[in-house]
């Protein structure tokens, strides 16, 4: 352990400023999560330009706090209105809303909070233990192994992030193409600029992220608002129960009785979170499904706190592990991890295994923030969770134009470049059409981020092998194994239609059908 770096991290993290941004991030995140249609990715995309103004620990506090808060916040509207704040909390609807209808909404929100924080904390400890070991292994990789590792990640992302392999890979292809616009990373020659001088620096991350994740979502929501109004009236009548101190809360014994479900959530969430492409929604439904099958006597699905505990532990346990591929290999495993990686890059720190030796203080600070964030989440969730339920009632007719204004300011304030705004609007339309035809956004953003590394590693491998492609690509048993694994992932996904099967996990038949958005 690098004691000097640890001390530096302690002095960086335990400052009023970092703590303020961590609290602000969680506060904002729970609120965003509680508003149907707004996800952690949208929130991070919108606050990303702010990271220019903060120091690195403040930025990490804001983004990680927002991420943790948003994943928990999604359960609030799932429980209160049967409309999950984000798809990650859709599994919580089954039991959560039934408890609300029985007047036990307070109990449901409390078990969601406690199981989220418990699983999140324990999975963070696992991350802190395994990430450095994996990074140490990754440091032994040469350019061809690194190249194939990225190809494996792209294959996994394409295969698992949607129900259609071709669409997942298409998204990765778009990301790769967009990532090559600008200057060639090795020889610094402009290319793929369509003869536009303003494209010489390439597509900037901030307008890309805001366009794909925030603006496209707002276009979608805007069209939804024009067509219909959401039906929250029925649940509103029961909302008063949340504020009634006399309504049934959660006892410590009840919390402890959910330890098995939280354990399932922890195991599934940690594993799923580490794999690129799956994410919190699959983790929540898998944990919920396993718990339901394993303990039929607990009547999960009929308004049981055990169902909420399994689903919420499952989705929150992915938060820390989703950063493992980013920290250990420099390859983001999810859209949110990609956004956190992008924020680190904007601060001049490139996520890679070398980060453990080059910037150990940032790694220690990140681990501390991951851990402390859970207690902040607990405090804010406990104090304001019931108030946040009211946010689900904020009209999208007000929210959508306001977020559009914030997106414009965010994209412009990053560099003050007019073209960034037009780029953001164009990419917003691209994101909107991608959503409509079922093309996932995550592979695009992740491939965009790793495209320069992919190219650099291929060219380095070719240089080492004097331009000979075969030894450059397959110079070790590990490189051959990874190449074979990438091919296997694509073939198996195509043959067995795994993406569609995983998507079905998120559409489990039940009496209460969750309504996303």
């Amino acid at each position: 352990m690098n004691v000097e770096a640890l001390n530096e991290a302690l002095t960086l993290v335990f400052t009023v400023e970092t703590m303020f941004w961590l609290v602000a991030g969680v506060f904002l995140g729970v609120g965003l999560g509680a508003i149907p249609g707004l996800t952690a990715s949208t929130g991070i995309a919108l606050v990303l330009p702010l990271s220019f103004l903060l120091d690195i620990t403040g930025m990490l506090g804001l983004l990680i706090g927002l991420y943790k808060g948003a994943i928990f916040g999604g359960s609030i509207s799932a429980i209160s209105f049967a409309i999950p704040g984000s798809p990650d909390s859709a599994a919580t609807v089954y039991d959560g809303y039934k408890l609300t209808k029985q007047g036990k909404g307070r109990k449901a929100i409390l078990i969601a909070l406690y199981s989220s924080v418990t699983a999140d904390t324990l999975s963070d400890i696992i991350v802190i233990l395994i990430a450095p070991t994996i990074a140490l292994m990754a440091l032994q990789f040469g350019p061809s192994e690194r190249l194939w590792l990225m190809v494996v990640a792209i294959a996994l992302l394409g295969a698992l992030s949607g129900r259609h392999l071709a669409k997942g890979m298409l998204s990765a292809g778009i990301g790769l193409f967009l990532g090559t616009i600008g200057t060639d990373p090795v020889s610094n020659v402009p290319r793929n600029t369509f003869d536009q001088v303003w494209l010489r620096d390439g597509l900037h991350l901030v307008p890309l992220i805001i366009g794909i994740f925030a603006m496209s979502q707002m276009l979608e929501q805007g069209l939804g608002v024009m067509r219909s109004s959401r039906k929250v009236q029925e649940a509103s009548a029961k909302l008063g129960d949340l504020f009634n101190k006399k309504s049934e809360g959660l006892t410590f014994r009840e919390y402890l009785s959910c330890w098995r479900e939280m354990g399932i959530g922890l195991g599934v969430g940690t594993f799923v979170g580490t794999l690129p492409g799956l994410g919190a929604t699959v983790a929540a439904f898998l944990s919920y499904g396993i718990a339901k099958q394993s303990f039929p006597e607990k009547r999960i699905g009929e308004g049981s706190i055990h169902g909420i505990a399994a689903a919420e532990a499952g989705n929150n346990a992915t938060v820390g592990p989703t950063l493992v591929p980013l920290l250990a290999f420099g390859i983001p495993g999810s859209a949110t991890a990609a956004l956190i990686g992008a924020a680190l890059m904007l601060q001049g720190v490139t996520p890679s295994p070398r980060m453990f030796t080059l910037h150990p203080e940032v790694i220690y600070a990140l681990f501390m923030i991951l851990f402390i964030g859970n207690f902040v989440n607990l405090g804010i969730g406990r104090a304001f969770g019931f108030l946040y339920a009211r946010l689900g009632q904020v009209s999208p007719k007000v929210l959508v134009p306001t977020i559009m204004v914030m997106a414009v300011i965010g994209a412009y304030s990053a560099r003050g470049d007019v073209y960034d705004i037009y780029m953001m609007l164009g990419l917003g339309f691209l994101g909107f059409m991608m959503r409509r035809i079922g093309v996932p956004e995550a592979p695009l953003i992740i491939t965009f981020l790793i495209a320069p590394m992919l190219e650099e590693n291929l060219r380095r491998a070719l240089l080492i092998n004097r331009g000979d492609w075969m030894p450059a690509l397959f110079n070790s048993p590990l490189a051959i194994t990874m190449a074979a694994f990438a091919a296997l992932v694509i073939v198996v996904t195509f043959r067995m239609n795994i993406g569609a099967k995983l998507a079905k996990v998120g559409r489990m038949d039940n009496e209460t059908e969750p309504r996303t958005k």
Partner: protein
Amino acid sequence: MLSWYRSNQAIGIYLCIALGLLLAYMLSTSWVFRETRDGFLLGFFPLLGVAGMMLCAFGLIVDPLRREVPEDFEDLAWADVANAILMLIGIGFYFATMRDIGFLLVTPVFLFVYMLWFGLRPLKQTVLLAMAIPIGIYVLFSVIGVRLPNGILPAFI
């Protein structure tokens, strides 16, 4: 037959045509085949991206899910696409005027028009929110050190 135009197979065909045009454009440019110092073709990776996309688009045409119509594409009307484009044009216009005239003068107008467009009523509430939200955003961004365009406002004060 009408729904075929929205199927994965049709989407694959549209994409193949668009990507074919992009590929033809790229091949007509000189930089694609220029060799860099390390002997690598400058256009290798951009072409790899286009080739990958074309392969996936071809996959959409022939794979087992080709007849499926994407859920969110099924009910997408031309009016929706037109509305989405109109929203974007409106935002572009808002940005252009906001830079010159100022955030606090233009944003209330933008918010009022969009809230009204989305159906927020009564009118009094729309006006009040359209006035209050920009002030809130301005204060928030000023506190965190982001200067929003003041435009012509200082001339009035």
